[in-house]
Protein backbone atom coordinates (compact mmCIF):
# COMPACT_ATOMS: atom_id res chain seq x y z
CA UNK A 1 0.00 0.00 0.00
CA UNK A 2 2.77 2.41 1.00
CA UNK A 3 4.99 1.65 -2.00
CA UNK A 4 2.80 2.71 -4.93
CA UNK A 5 1.64 5.72 -2.90
CA UNK A 6 5.16 6.93 -2.43
CA UNK A 7 6.06 6.34 -6.07
CA UNK A 8 2.98 8.29 -7.09
CA UNK A 9 3.94 11.11 -4.74
CA UNK A 10 7.48 11.33 -6.11
CA UNK A 11 6.28 11.16 -9.71
CA UNK A 12 3.61 13.74 -9.05
CA UNK A 13 6.10 15.99 -7.29
CA UNK A 14 8.62 15.73 -10.12
CA UNK A 15 5.92 16.44 -12.70
CA UNK A 16 4.79 19.48 -10.70
CA UNK A 17 8.33 20.83 -10.38
CA UNK A 18 9.21 20.46 -14.05
CA UNK A 19 5.82 21.92 -14.92
CA UNK A 20 6.67 24.97 -12.82
CA UNK A 21 10.05 25.35 -14.52
CA UNK A 22 8.44 25.05 -17.96
CA UNK A 23 5.95 27.77 -17.03
CA UNK A 24 8.70 30.12 -15.87
CA UNK A 25 10.43 29.58 -19.25
CA UNK A 26 7.21 30.29 -21.13
CA UNK A 27 7.16 33.92 -22.35
CA UNK A 28 3.35 34.02 -22.31
CA UNK A 29 3.24 32.98 -18.64
CA UNK A 30 5.98 35.46 -17.77
CA UNK A 31 4.02 38.19 -19.50
CA UNK A 32 0.91 37.34 -17.46
CA UNK A 33 2.80 37.16 -14.19
CA UNK A 34 4.50 40.50 -14.87
CA UNK A 35 1.09 42.17 -15.00
CA UNK A 36 1.10 42.04 -11.21
CA UNK A 37 3.75 44.76 -11.27
CA UNK A 38 1.27 47.23 -12.75
CA UNK A 39 -1.24 46.28 -10.08
CA UNK A 40 1.34 46.75 -7.33
CA UNK A 41 2.42 50.12 -8.71
CA UNK A 42 -1.17 51.29 -9.11
CA UNK A 43 -2.11 50.14 -5.62
CA UNK A 44 0.96 51.66 -3.98
CA UNK A 45 0.58 54.94 -5.86
CA UNK A 46 -3.05 55.01 -4.72
CA UNK A 47 -2.36 54.43 -1.03
CA UNK A 48 0.98 56.23 -0.62
CA UNK A 49 0.59 60.02 -0.65
CA UNK A 50 3.01 61.69 -3.09
CA UNK A 51 4.77 63.46 -0.27
CA UNK A 52 4.86 60.61 2.28
CA UNK A 53 8.39 60.33 3.64
CA UNK A 54 10.36 57.13 4.07
CA UNK A 55 11.14 56.50 7.76
CA UNK A 56 14.27 58.24 9.03
CA UNK A 57 16.58 56.98 11.74
CA UNK A 58 19.00 58.30 14.34
CA UNK A 59 22.81 58.57 14.23
CA UNK A 60 22.98 55.66 16.65
CA UNK A 61 21.24 53.39 14.15
CA UNK A 62 23.67 53.98 11.26
CA UNK A 63 25.13 50.66 10.04
CA UNK A 64 28.80 50.16 10.82
CA UNK A 65 29.13 47.90 7.85
CA UNK A 66 27.01 49.36 5.02
CA UNK A 67 27.24 46.84 2.22
CA UNK A 68 28.38 48.07 -1.20
CA UNK A 69 26.60 46.12 -3.93
CA UNK A 70 26.94 45.98 -7.71
CA UNK A 71 29.99 47.83 -9.06
CA UNK A 72 32.47 49.01 -6.49
CA UNK A 73 35.27 50.26 -8.71
CA UNK A 74 34.31 51.30 -12.27
CA UNK A 75 36.85 50.50 -14.98
CA UNK A 76 35.68 53.27 -17.31
CA UNK A 77 38.69 55.25 -18.56
CA UNK A 78 37.03 58.65 -18.27
CA UNK A 79 35.91 57.78 -14.76
CA UNK A 80 39.41 56.72 -13.78
CA UNK A 81 40.79 60.06 -14.98
CA UNK A 82 38.14 62.07 -13.11
CA UNK A 83 38.74 60.05 -10.02
CA UNK A 84 42.53 60.54 -10.20
CA UNK A 85 41.89 64.26 -10.10
CA UNK A 86 39.51 64.14 -7.12
CA UNK A 87 36.51 64.69 -9.46
CA UNK A 88 37.51 68.35 -9.97
CA UNK A 89 36.72 68.03 -13.68
CA UNK A 90 33.51 66.08 -13.17
CA UNK A 91 30.43 67.56 -14.82
CA UNK A 92 26.92 66.23 -14.35
CA UNK A 93 25.00 66.66 -17.58
CA UNK A 94 21.25 67.29 -17.32
CA UNK A 95 19.55 67.26 -20.71
CA UNK A 96 16.76 65.71 -22.77
CA UNK A 97 13.31 67.25 -22.49
CA UNK A 98 14.44 70.33 -20.55
CA UNK A 99 14.31 74.04 -21.35
CA UNK A 100 17.87 74.72 -20.13
CA UNK A 101 20.36 71.84 -20.31
CA UNK A 102 22.82 71.94 -17.41
CA UNK A 103 26.41 70.96 -16.85
CA UNK A 104 27.15 71.02 -13.14
CA UNK A 105 30.43 70.54 -11.31
CA UNK A 106 30.51 68.87 -7.92
CA UNK A 107 30.96 72.33 -6.37
CA UNK A 108 27.88 73.57 -8.28
CA UNK A 109 25.88 70.65 -6.94
CA UNK A 110 26.96 71.41 -3.39
CA UNK A 111 25.65 74.97 -3.77
CA UNK A 112 22.17 73.75 -4.71
CA UNK A 113 19.39 73.23 -2.10
CA UNK A 114 20.34 70.16 -0.13
CA UNK A 115 18.90 67.72 2.37
CA UNK A 116 20.46 65.40 4.93
CA UNK A 117 18.69 62.18 5.94
CA UNK A 118 19.37 58.92 7.73
CA UNK A 119 17.47 56.23 5.90
CA UNK A 120 17.47 52.52 5.34
CA UNK A 121 18.71 51.02 2.12
CA UNK A 122 16.67 47.96 1.18
CA UNK A 123 18.37 45.63 -1.25
CA UNK A 124 16.30 43.48 -3.59
CA UNK A 125 18.31 40.54 -2.22
CA UNK A 126 16.73 41.06 1.17
CA UNK A 127 19.30 42.82 3.34
CA UNK A 128 19.07 46.29 4.87
CA UNK A 129 21.73 48.84 5.79
CA UNK A 130 21.22 52.27 7.34
CA UNK A 131 23.21 55.30 6.22
CA UNK A 132 23.25 59.08 6.42
CA UNK A 133 23.09 60.90 3.13
CA UNK A 134 23.55 64.50 2.09
CA UNK A 135 22.87 65.64 -1.43
CA UNK A 136 21.31 68.12 -3.79
CA UNK A 137 17.55 67.80 -4.06
CA UNK A 138 16.76 66.37 -7.47
CA UNK A 139 13.60 68.50 -7.59
CA UNK A 140 15.70 71.69 -7.39
CA UNK A 141 17.99 70.57 -10.20
CA UNK A 142 15.03 69.62 -12.40
CA UNK A 143 13.31 72.95 -11.67
CA UNK A 144 16.50 74.74 -12.61
CA UNK A 145 16.65 72.87 -15.91
CA UNK A 146 12.91 73.33 -16.45
CA UNK A 147 11.14 70.15 -17.57
CA UNK A 148 9.21 70.32 -20.81
CA UNK A 149 5.53 69.34 -20.47
CA UNK A 150 6.02 66.00 -22.21
CA UNK A 151 8.80 64.82 -19.86
CA UNK A 152 7.58 61.75 -17.96
CA UNK A 153 10.66 59.90 -16.73
CA UNK A 154 14.11 60.82 -15.49
CA UNK A 155 16.90 58.57 -16.75
CA UNK A 156 20.19 58.11 -14.91
CA UNK A 157 23.21 57.00 -16.96
CA UNK A 158 26.25 55.75 -15.08
CA UNK A 159 29.97 55.21 -15.57
CA UNK A 160 29.99 51.65 -14.30
CA UNK A 161 29.47 48.34 -16.04
CA UNK A 162 28.41 45.48 -13.79
CA UNK A 163 30.67 43.02 -15.59
CA UNK A 164 33.53 45.29 -14.42
CA UNK A 165 34.97 45.54 -17.93
CA UNK A 166 35.93 48.74 -19.72
CA UNK A 167 33.36 48.45 -22.45
CA UNK A 168 30.67 46.44 -20.68
CA UNK A 169 27.07 47.60 -20.81
CA UNK A 170 26.76 50.68 -18.61
CA UNK A 171 24.39 50.76 -15.66
CA UNK A 172 21.31 52.88 -16.01
CA UNK A 173 17.88 53.20 -14.45
CA UNK A 174 14.89 55.52 -14.35
CA UNK A 175 12.20 56.92 -12.06
CA UNK A 176 8.98 58.78 -12.76
CA UNK A 177 8.23 62.36 -11.78
CA UNK A 178 6.43 61.36 -8.56
CA UNK A 179 9.68 60.02 -7.17
CA UNK A 180 11.89 62.56 -8.97
CA UNK A 181 10.18 65.46 -7.18
CA UNK A 182 9.93 63.68 -3.81
CA UNK A 183 11.56 65.57 -0.92
CA UNK A 184 13.94 62.70 -0.08
CA UNK A 185 15.12 62.13 -3.63
CA UNK A 186 18.71 63.35 -3.68
CA UNK A 187 21.82 63.39 -5.79
CA UNK A 188 23.93 62.36 -2.82
CA UNK A 189 27.56 63.47 -2.59
CA UNK A 190 28.08 62.70 1.11
CA UNK A 191 27.64 59.51 3.08
CA UNK A 192 27.86 59.36 6.87
CA UNK A 193 29.27 62.89 6.96
CA UNK A 194 32.13 62.27 4.49
CA UNK A 195 32.52 62.54 0.72
CA UNK A 196 30.69 59.62 -0.95
CA UNK A 197 33.18 56.69 -1.06
CA UNK A 198 34.09 55.17 -4.43
CA UNK A 199 32.44 51.86 -3.60
CA UNK A 200 29.18 53.65 -2.81
CA UNK A 201 29.08 55.57 -6.09
CA UNK A 202 31.36 58.64 -5.98
CA UNK A 203 31.04 61.37 -7.00
CA UNK A 204 27.22 61.17 -6.86
CA UNK A 205 24.55 58.55 -6.50
CA UNK A 206 20.79 58.69 -6.44
CA UNK A 207 18.76 58.29 -3.26
CA UNK A 208 15.14 57.34 -3.99
CA UNK A 209 14.13 56.18 -0.55
CA UNK A 210 10.75 54.64 -1.32
CA UNK A 211 12.19 52.05 -3.68
CA UNK A 212 14.75 49.25 -3.58
CA UNK A 213 18.50 49.68 -3.89
CA UNK A 214 18.81 48.91 -7.59
CA UNK A 215 16.95 52.14 -8.38
CA UNK A 216 19.61 54.16 -6.58
CA UNK A 217 22.11 54.47 -9.40
CA UNK A 218 25.75 55.06 -8.45
CA UNK A 219 28.49 56.84 -10.46
CA UNK A 220 25.96 59.05 -12.24
CA UNK A 221 27.28 60.69 -15.39
CA UNK A 222 24.20 62.09 -17.06
CA UNK A 223 20.56 62.73 -16.30
CA UNK A 224 18.05 62.84 -19.13
CA UNK A 225 14.37 63.75 -19.08
CA UNK A 226 12.40 61.57 -21.52
CA UNK A 227 8.83 60.91 -22.52
CA UNK A 228 9.38 57.16 -22.84
CA UNK A 229 12.29 54.77 -22.35
CA UNK A 230 11.11 52.21 -24.90
CA UNK A 231 14.03 53.10 -27.22
CA UNK A 232 16.73 52.98 -24.51
CA UNK A 233 18.66 49.78 -23.78
CA UNK A 234 16.26 46.85 -24.05
CA UNK A 235 13.38 49.21 -23.38
CA UNK A 236 12.47 48.31 -19.80
CA UNK A 237 13.88 51.45 -18.17
CA UNK A 238 17.08 50.15 -16.60
CA UNK A 239 19.92 47.67 -16.49
CA UNK A 240 18.23 45.29 -14.04
CA UNK A 241 14.81 46.13 -15.42
CA UNK A 242 16.05 44.86 -18.81
CA UNK A 243 16.95 41.63 -17.02
CA UNK A 244 13.51 40.87 -15.63
CA UNK A 245 13.38 42.98 -12.47
CA UNK A 246 10.38 45.23 -11.91
CA UNK A 247 10.61 48.82 -13.12
CA UNK A 248 8.59 49.86 -10.06
CA UNK A 249 10.67 48.66 -7.12
CA UNK A 250 8.42 49.77 -4.26
CA UNK A 251 8.29 46.24 -2.84
Amino acid at each position, binding site marked *: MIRPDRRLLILGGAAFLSGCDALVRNPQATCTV*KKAEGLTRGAQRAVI*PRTALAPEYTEREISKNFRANGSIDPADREYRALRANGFRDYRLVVDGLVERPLSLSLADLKRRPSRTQITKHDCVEGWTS*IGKWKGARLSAILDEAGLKPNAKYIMFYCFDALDQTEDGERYYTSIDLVDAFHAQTLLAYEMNGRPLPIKHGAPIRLRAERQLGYKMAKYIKRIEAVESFAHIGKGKGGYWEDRGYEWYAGI
Partner: protein
Amino acid sequence: MARPDRPLTDGRLAIWRHPLPVRLTHWINVLCVVVLLMTGLQILRAHPHLYWGLASDFDDPWLSFPVIPGWMTLPSWRDLAAGRNWHFFFAWIFVINGLIYLTYALISGRVRRLMEPSREELRDIPQSVVQHARLRFPEGEAARTYNVIQKLTYLVVLFLLLPLMLATGLAMSPGMNAVLPELLELFGGRQSARTLHFLAAMGLVAFTVVHVLLVFLSGPINTLQAMVTGWYVIRTEPEDATDDPA
Protein backbone atom coordinates in the same frame (compact mmCIF):
# COMPACT_ATOMS: atom_id res chain seq x y z
CA MET B 1 -27.24 27.81 1.36
CA ALA B 2 -27.38 24.84 3.68
CA ARG B 3 -28.74 21.74 2.06
CA PRO B 4 -30.73 18.98 3.79
CA ASP B 5 -28.97 15.74 4.75
CA ARG B 6 -29.15 12.93 2.20
CA PRO B 7 -29.62 9.46 3.72
CA LEU B 8 -27.46 6.81 2.08
CA THR B 9 -27.62 3.02 2.43
CA ASP B 10 -26.38 1.06 5.48
CA GLY B 11 -26.89 3.75 8.09
CA ARG B 12 -24.78 6.45 6.45
CA LEU B 13 -25.77 10.02 5.93
CA ALA B 14 -24.35 12.55 3.47
CA ILE B 15 -24.23 15.99 5.02
CA TRP B 16 -23.63 19.30 3.21
CA ARG B 17 -20.28 20.43 4.53
CA HIS B 18 -18.39 22.78 2.23
CA PRO B 19 -20.31 25.20 -0.01
CA LEU B 20 -18.72 26.10 -3.34
CA PRO B 21 -16.99 29.33 -2.24
CA VAL B 22 -15.18 27.42 0.53
CA ARG B 23 -14.05 24.65 -1.80
CA LEU B 24 -12.91 27.01 -4.53
CA THR B 25 -11.03 29.37 -2.24
CA HIS B 26 -9.48 26.46 -0.35
CA TRP B 27 -7.87 24.94 -3.44
CA ILE B 28 -6.86 28.29 -4.91
CA ASN B 29 -5.24 29.03 -1.56
CA VAL B 30 -3.35 25.73 -1.63
CA LEU B 31 -1.94 26.62 -5.06
CA CYS B 32 -1.01 30.13 -3.89
CA VAL B 33 0.65 28.94 -0.69
CA VAL B 34 2.71 26.33 -2.55
CA VAL B 35 3.91 28.82 -5.19
CA LEU B 36 4.51 31.52 -2.57
CA LEU B 37 6.58 29.12 -0.49
CA MET B 38 8.72 27.98 -3.43
CA THR B 39 9.25 31.46 -4.84
CA GLY B 40 9.84 32.72 -1.31
CA LEU B 41 12.69 30.23 -0.95
CA GLN B 42 14.02 31.45 -4.32
CA ILE B 43 14.06 35.00 -2.92
CA LEU B 44 15.65 33.83 0.33
CA ARG B 45 18.37 32.12 -1.72
CA ALA B 46 19.56 35.55 -2.95
CA HIS B 47 20.71 36.35 0.60
CA PRO B 48 20.19 33.26 2.75
CA HIS B 49 20.77 34.94 6.11
CA LEU B 50 18.21 36.18 8.63
CA TYR B 51 18.58 38.97 11.17
CA TRP B 52 16.60 40.65 13.94
CA GLY B 53 16.15 44.40 14.12
CA LEU B 54 16.25 47.29 11.69
CA ALA B 55 19.24 46.41 9.57
CA SER B 56 21.50 43.49 8.66
CA ASP B 57 24.53 42.97 10.85
CA PHE B 58 26.32 40.89 8.24
CA ASP B 59 28.70 39.42 10.81
CA ASP B 60 25.90 38.17 12.99
CA PRO B 61 22.88 36.62 11.28
CA TRP B 62 20.81 34.53 13.70
CA LEU B 63 20.14 31.97 10.99
CA SER B 64 21.95 31.10 7.75
CA PHE B 65 21.20 28.50 5.11
CA PRO B 66 24.30 27.01 3.48
CA VAL B 67 22.22 25.44 0.70
CA ILE B 68 18.67 25.82 -0.47
CA PRO B 69 18.17 22.94 -2.93
CA GLY B 70 16.76 23.75 -6.35
CA TRP B 71 13.83 21.35 -6.05
CA MET B 72 12.46 23.52 -3.25
CA THR B 73 12.49 26.70 -5.28
CA LEU B 74 10.59 28.07 -8.22
CA PRO B 75 12.19 28.18 -10.71
CA SER B 76 14.67 25.46 -9.80
CA TRP B 77 17.62 27.51 -11.10
CA ARG B 78 18.72 30.76 -9.49
CA ASP B 79 16.54 33.59 -10.76
CA LEU B 80 15.63 36.25 -8.24
CA ALA B 81 13.77 38.37 -10.81
CA ALA B 82 11.47 35.50 -11.83
CA GLY B 83 11.06 34.45 -8.20
CA ARG B 84 9.90 37.95 -7.27
CA ASN B 85 7.59 38.33 -10.27
CA TRP B 86 5.86 35.03 -9.50
CA HIS B 87 5.81 35.70 -5.76
CA PHE B 88 3.98 39.01 -6.12
CA PHE B 89 1.58 37.71 -8.78
CA PHE B 90 0.48 34.88 -6.48
CA ALA B 91 0.53 37.18 -3.47
CA TRP B 92 -2.19 39.23 -5.17
CA ILE B 93 -4.29 36.13 -5.87
CA PHE B 94 -3.68 34.93 -2.31
CA VAL B 95 -4.91 38.24 -0.86
CA ILE B 96 -7.98 38.56 -3.09
CA ASN B 97 -8.86 34.89 -2.59
CA GLY B 98 -8.35 35.19 1.16
CA LEU B 99 -10.58 38.26 1.34
CA ILE B 100 -13.31 36.47 -0.58
CA TYR B 101 -13.13 33.48 1.77
CA LEU B 102 -13.07 35.56 4.96
CA THR B 103 -15.94 37.78 3.81
CA TYR B 104 -17.99 34.73 2.93
CA ALA B 105 -17.10 32.78 6.07
CA LEU B 106 -17.85 35.70 8.36
CA ILE B 107 -21.07 36.88 6.71
CA SER B 108 -22.53 33.41 6.24
CA GLY B 109 -21.84 32.63 9.91
CA ARG B 110 -19.53 29.77 8.97
CA VAL B 111 -16.81 30.93 11.33
CA ARG B 112 -19.23 31.06 14.28
CA ARG B 113 -21.03 27.86 13.39
CA LEU B 114 -18.05 25.66 12.55
CA MET B 115 -15.05 27.21 14.24
CA GLU B 116 -16.07 29.07 17.36
CA PRO B 117 -15.48 26.65 20.24
CA SER B 118 -18.11 26.45 22.98
CA ARG B 119 -17.18 26.83 26.64
CA GLU B 120 -17.59 23.09 27.24
CA GLU B 121 -15.32 22.32 24.34
CA LEU B 122 -12.63 24.61 25.71
CA ARG B 123 -12.91 22.87 29.07
CA ASP B 124 -12.55 19.46 27.43
CA ILE B 125 -9.46 20.31 25.42
CA PRO B 126 -7.20 17.82 27.29
CA GLN B 127 -9.62 15.01 26.54
CA SER B 128 -9.76 16.03 22.91
CA VAL B 129 -5.97 16.05 22.74
CA VAL B 130 -5.88 12.50 24.06
CA GLN B 131 -8.47 11.40 21.51
CA HIS B 132 -6.48 13.06 18.76
CA ALA B 133 -3.26 11.44 19.89
CA ARG B 134 -4.94 8.04 19.75
CA LEU B 135 -6.04 8.91 16.25
CA ARG B 136 -9.67 8.34 17.13
CA PHE B 137 -11.84 10.39 14.85
CA PRO B 138 -15.58 10.61 15.40
CA GLU B 139 -17.70 9.20 12.61
CA GLY B 140 -21.18 9.85 13.90
CA GLU B 141 -23.07 13.01 14.82
CA ALA B 142 -19.93 14.44 16.46
CA ALA B 143 -18.32 14.55 13.01
CA ARG B 144 -20.81 17.17 11.89
CA THR B 145 -18.59 19.92 13.21
CA TYR B 146 -14.86 20.27 13.61
CA ASN B 147 -13.41 19.13 16.92
CA VAL B 148 -12.05 21.73 19.27
CA ILE B 149 -8.38 21.40 18.28
CA GLN B 150 -9.32 21.64 14.65
CA LYS B 151 -11.46 24.71 15.37
CA LEU B 152 -8.68 26.48 17.23
CA THR B 153 -6.09 25.56 14.62
CA TYR B 154 -8.21 26.88 11.77
CA LEU B 155 -8.87 30.08 13.72
CA VAL B 156 -5.15 30.58 14.34
CA VAL B 157 -4.30 29.91 10.69
CA LEU B 158 -7.09 32.07 9.29
CA PHE B 159 -6.88 35.02 11.65
CA LEU B 160 -3.24 34.99 12.72
CA LEU B 161 -0.84 33.09 10.46
CA LEU B 162 -2.20 34.01 7.03
CA PRO B 163 -2.73 37.71 7.88
CA LEU B 164 0.74 37.75 9.47
CA MET B 165 2.22 36.52 6.18
CA LEU B 166 0.64 39.48 4.40
CA ALA B 167 1.48 42.06 7.07
CA THR B 168 5.14 41.05 7.38
CA GLY B 169 5.38 40.95 3.59
CA LEU B 170 4.05 44.50 3.30
CA ALA B 171 6.34 45.65 6.11
CA MET B 172 9.33 44.77 3.90
CA SER B 173 8.15 47.11 1.15
CA PRO B 174 10.00 50.47 1.13
CA GLY B 175 6.94 51.99 -0.53
CA MET B 176 4.58 50.80 2.20
CA ASN B 177 7.07 51.89 4.86
CA ALA B 178 6.49 55.49 3.76
CA VAL B 179 2.73 55.33 4.33
CA LEU B 180 2.56 52.78 7.18
CA PRO B 181 5.73 53.19 9.24
CA GLU B 182 3.74 51.87 12.23
CA LEU B 183 3.64 48.43 10.64
CA LEU B 184 7.42 48.43 10.30
CA GLU B 185 7.78 49.51 13.92
CA LEU B 186 5.29 46.91 15.10
CA PHE B 187 7.55 44.16 13.78
CA GLY B 188 10.73 45.85 15.01
CA GLY B 189 12.27 46.86 11.66
CA ARG B 190 12.64 45.43 8.20
CA GLN B 191 15.00 42.62 9.09
CA SER B 192 12.74 41.49 11.94
CA ALA B 193 9.80 41.63 9.53
CA ARG B 194 11.75 39.45 7.12
CA THR B 195 12.56 36.96 9.87
CA LEU B 196 8.92 36.89 11.01
CA HIS B 197 7.80 36.43 7.39
CA PHE B 198 10.04 33.38 7.23
CA LEU B 199 8.91 32.01 10.60
CA ALA B 200 5.24 32.47 9.75
CA ALA B 201 5.85 30.60 6.48
CA MET B 202 7.46 27.76 8.45
CA GLY B 203 4.44 27.79 10.76
CA LEU B 204 2.24 27.42 7.72
CA VAL B 205 4.36 24.53 6.46
CA ALA B 206 4.05 22.84 9.87
CA PHE B 207 0.28 23.36 9.83
CA THR B 208 0.01 21.98 6.29
CA VAL B 209 2.02 18.86 7.09
CA VAL B 210 -0.16 18.04 10.11
CA HIS B 211 -3.33 19.11 8.27
CA VAL B 212 -2.63 16.80 5.33
CA LEU B 213 -1.52 14.01 7.66
CA LEU B 214 -4.79 14.24 9.58
CA VAL B 215 -6.77 14.31 6.35
CA PHE B 216 -5.13 11.04 5.42
CA LEU B 217 -5.43 9.46 8.86
CA SER B 218 -9.08 10.41 9.32
CA GLY B 219 -10.25 8.91 6.04
CA PRO B 220 -8.83 10.68 3.03
CA ILE B 221 -11.56 9.63 0.61
CA ASN B 222 -14.33 11.11 2.71
CA THR B 223 -12.63 14.37 3.71
CA LEU B 224 -11.13 15.04 0.28
CA GLN B 225 -14.39 14.18 -1.41
CA ALA B 226 -16.03 16.68 0.92
CA MET B 227 -13.58 19.40 -0.05
CA VAL B 228 -14.23 18.62 -3.74
CA THR B 229 -17.97 17.93 -3.92
CA GLY B 230 -19.15 19.52 -0.70
CA TRP B 231 -20.76 16.30 0.64
CA TYR B 232 -19.33 14.59 3.72
CA VAL B 233 -20.47 11.19 4.92
CA ILE B 234 -21.17 10.40 8.57
CA ARG B 235 -22.69 7.37 10.29
CA THR B 236 -26.09 7.60 11.90
CA GLU B 237 -26.51 5.76 15.18
CA PRO B 238 -28.29 2.53 14.24
CA GLU B 239 -30.95 2.96 16.95
CA ASP B 240 -33.97 0.99 15.78
CA ALA B 241 -32.26 -1.88 14.01
CA THR B 242 -30.01 -3.41 16.66
CA ASP B 243 -30.78 -1.72 19.96
CA ASP B 244 -34.35 -2.92 20.29
CA PRO B 245 -34.72 -6.68 20.71
CA ALA B 246 -38.51 -6.60 21.03
